[in-house]
């Protein structure tokens, strides 16, 4: 769009050349007009500023209505304030200056711009420090064998087949488990110190969360793997028994120490 308002602009006194493009919005433009002319923001010559503002946005084309709307809205506000300024202020003294709200917005916006600049500096500083992590290398697609001779149609077809690789986001965090399996190993070994077998559910007494059950079970499996004990369950959902493996004898017959009340089931 053509936002330069250069032509025919120069001669008038107090006139500015403004490229609306450069501005993030009407407040930005307004602030620019005020600051570049050293205008006291608490005493804005509203008539002059309104003229300059209208002149600056004259180039905005109708097809950019989206962005233009914001500038036009501000133009309307300025014209309204200008009209209000012309009214004799007869009523009570406390009647607010018609410009007050605009001034408040402008100052606020200026402050935000200052903060944005500081954020930008902080962002740049932070970007100079690197943490752990890596960007996965871009996957290389195998190069297909292409015949030397080709037609534009083939190229076109090939272009249509190209897919953008899915961006992958990887992140990992170190999080501690709330219940440690190591603790459960100690718990099991303690329970088996003076007896040869112990009920699994007995080991869960006093612990509420499911994670304790999971970790106790994992600890049981781990100790089984280490050949320190073995697990026995007579049927699905029946009580799980944990047995101490006697000595190191590999061939030791575990059948000997199965709980008597489950004898029949265990053999099945």
């Amino acid at each position, binding site marked *: 769009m053509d936002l330069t308002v250069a032509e025919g602009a120069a001669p008038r006194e107090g006139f500015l050349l403004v490229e609306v493009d450069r501005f993030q919005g009407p407040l930005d433009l307004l602030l620019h007009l005020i600051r570049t002319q050293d205008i006291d923001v*608490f005493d804005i010559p509203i008539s002059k500023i309104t003229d300059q503002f209208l002149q600056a946005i004259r180039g905005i084309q109708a097809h950019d209505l989206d962005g233009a709307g914001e500038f036009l809205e501000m133009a309307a506000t300025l014209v309204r304030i200008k009209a209000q300024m012309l009214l004799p202020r007869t009523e009570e003294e406390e009647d607010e200056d018609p410009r007050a709200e605009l001034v408040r917005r402008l100052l606020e916006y200026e402050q935000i711009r200052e903060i944005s600049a500081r954020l930008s500096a902080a962002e740049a500083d932070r970007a100079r420090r690197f943490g752990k992590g890596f960007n996965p290398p871009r996957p290389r697609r195998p190069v297909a064998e292409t015949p030397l001779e080709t037609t534009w149609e083939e190229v076109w077809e090939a272009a249509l087949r190209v897919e953008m690789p899915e961006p992958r986001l990887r992140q990992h965090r170190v999080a501690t488990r709330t219940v440690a399996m190591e603790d459960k190993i100690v718990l099991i070994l303690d329970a088996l110190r003076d007896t040869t077998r112990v009920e699994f559910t007995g080991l869960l007494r006093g612990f509420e969360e499911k994670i304790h059950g999971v970790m106790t079970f994992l600890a049981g499996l781990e100790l089984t793997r280490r050949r320190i004990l073995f697990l026995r369950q007579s049927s699905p959902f029946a009580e799980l028994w944990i047995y101490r493996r006697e000595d190191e004898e590999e061939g030791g017959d575990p059948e000997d120490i199965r709980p008597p009340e489950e004898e029949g089931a265990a053999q099945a």
Partner: protein
Amino acid sequence: MNAHQIVEAVLFASDAPLTADEIARADETLDEDRVEDAIRFLQAEYDDAERSFQVVELAEGYQVLTRPEFAPYLERFDNVPRPSRLSGPALETLAIIAYRQPLGRIEMEYIRGVGSAGVLKTLQDREMIEVVGRAEGLGRPVLYGTTARFLEHFGFKSLEELPRPEELPIILRERVQLGPEEEVEEAEADSDQLVLGEGSEATASVSSDEPDPNVAQAEETPSG
């Protein structure tokens, strides 16, 4: 194993800031205070040894990051992750949310003077802001606030580390405060008392010379 070794191991293995409380979960002998002691110990040790990295306080936690002066060496690698910088409008929007949170889109657009739906979406996608609640009133519009990612991205320990409004070199800043909640009320009260000078020469002379009765009437009509 020393406490500072355990803390070091945990920090070393993490690619995101961890709070002292999170680090303390590594071992029963640790608590927040001991973790912080250990971190101070590590910080001094790294400094003494002139390591290329430091334990940095970030986003309410700690993370091991390289010293800024090594950036040029690391920037030569494509697979070293570098966060992309935010655009001007995104920074502006984020600045407003950081100081005014929670706040909704309509208020944002009034402050900025431009439509902000797109930039809010972008900031949300980048996890710089999140929906923190809903306003009372018509349609119960969503309200946005900043995230821990925001603090991480800008290298802030906490929101307290943002520049205070009173540090900003802007005239009459006390009248237009962007401070935390308790100060906003005050600021709003003050802004009502904005005293402006008399109208500019041009408008003042017009209004005194030719008060237009039609315009005056027009103003009274809608108020009645």
